[in-house]
């Protein structure tokens, strides 16, 4: 099977991200966003859904790729892992929104994730509204570390929590956000 020609490059970004390289991780997510957008738009075109829905799914999948990145086996190719998660999110999304799942073909990861689409539209997600549903401690940890960009130790000092408590809160918060994203009523 022919993989994306940039598979080695994407995989290198993933491996660096897993070792804690935030810039590489961010670059990877940006590249994958474009790939996922093309994939979901293509799938949605078949069943008559719009670009905003596709963007919702791009963001859901990015959250899933991030919060489940420990499930990637460093010795394997990256694209099949990304495709399996993208397809799982798509099927789950269609099931949630009561569309027919039978329309989603199982294809080889290579051909499906071939294109890129850089034209992002806003999704229907409202991050601040979702954040409001988190517990205060979790919300504060996400705000400090993820939105304000403080280091874990700075956030710990500011919030009066231990560093490990901050890490746990951020981790839990992202998990909770991904759940909230999926549970919100479809637009």
């Amino acid at each position: 099977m022919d993989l994306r020609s940039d598979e080695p490059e994407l995989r290198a970004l993933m491996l660096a991200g897993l070792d804690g390289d935030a810039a590489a991780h961010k670059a990877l997510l940006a590249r994958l966003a474009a790939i996922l957008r093309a994939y979901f738009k293509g799938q949605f075109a078949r069943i008559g859904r719009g670009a905003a829905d596709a963007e919702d799914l791009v963001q859901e999948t990015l959250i899933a790729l991030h919060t489940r990145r420990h499930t990637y086996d460093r010795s394997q190719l990256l694209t099949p892992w990304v495709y399996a998660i993208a397809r799982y999110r798509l099927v789950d999304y269609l099931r949630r929104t009561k569309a027919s799942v039978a329309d989603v073909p199982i294809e080889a990861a290579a051909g499906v994730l071939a294109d890129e689409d850089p034209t992002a539209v806003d999704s229907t997600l409202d991050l601040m509204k979702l954040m409001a549903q988190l517990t205060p401690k979790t919300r504060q940890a996400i705000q400090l570390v993820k939105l304000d960009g403080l280091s874990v130790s700075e956030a710990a000092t500011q919030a009066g929590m231990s560093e490990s408590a901050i890490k746990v809160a951020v981790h839990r918060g992202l998990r909770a956000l991904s759940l909230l994203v999926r549970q919100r009523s479809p637009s």
Partner: protein
Amino acid sequence: MKTDELIDLLGANVEPVKRGYMRTALLAALAVGAAAAFCLRLAVYGVPANPFSGEDVGLKVAGLALALSLVVVGGGFLIKSARPGEAGRGALIIIGLLLLAIFSAGTIALALASPSAWSGMVFGPQWAACFFCIPVFAALPFATLVWALRKAAPTRLALTGAVIGLVAGALGAAVCAYHYPSSSIPFLAFWYGGPIVLCGLIGALLGPRLLRW
């Protein structure tokens, strides 16, 4: 929300992921579940006086070996199944062959015996207790494995649930194996193999609910 904002959010202060984290977490869950089932067994039945004695010791060891190989192969499949995009077909085939071996051994042993002996072979002492005790003991490893898999990313939920059920059932059978007599091969096949398969079916039904992410 703009996707770029989300990427900024996810890409800020990225924590490194430990190598082999998934495998360690799953094996730990398996070990904790097995230990819990074993402790429950000790609490319910007490310490076995002399488990590997008596005339059925060969059958007991064979049954234990089959159950533990199911646990090992099934555990290997679960490690693959926790990772999106990995098929684990080899492990599934071996699981199928192991189950086939158990049930065909039982059927062949019956076929070789005279029909008048069938009822005695199948409905050996305490068959019902054996049948019901295995799913009960399987519940603990089932719970720990589901808990571990929920933190992973299984994409085939019914299949993963079925294998969790089989592994938990096999652990339950292994724990019960030296309490109940294994008087004949058909007894072993039907009253140990049967509940293991039942656990697999329950797992397949519960998987899509419990493992969804």
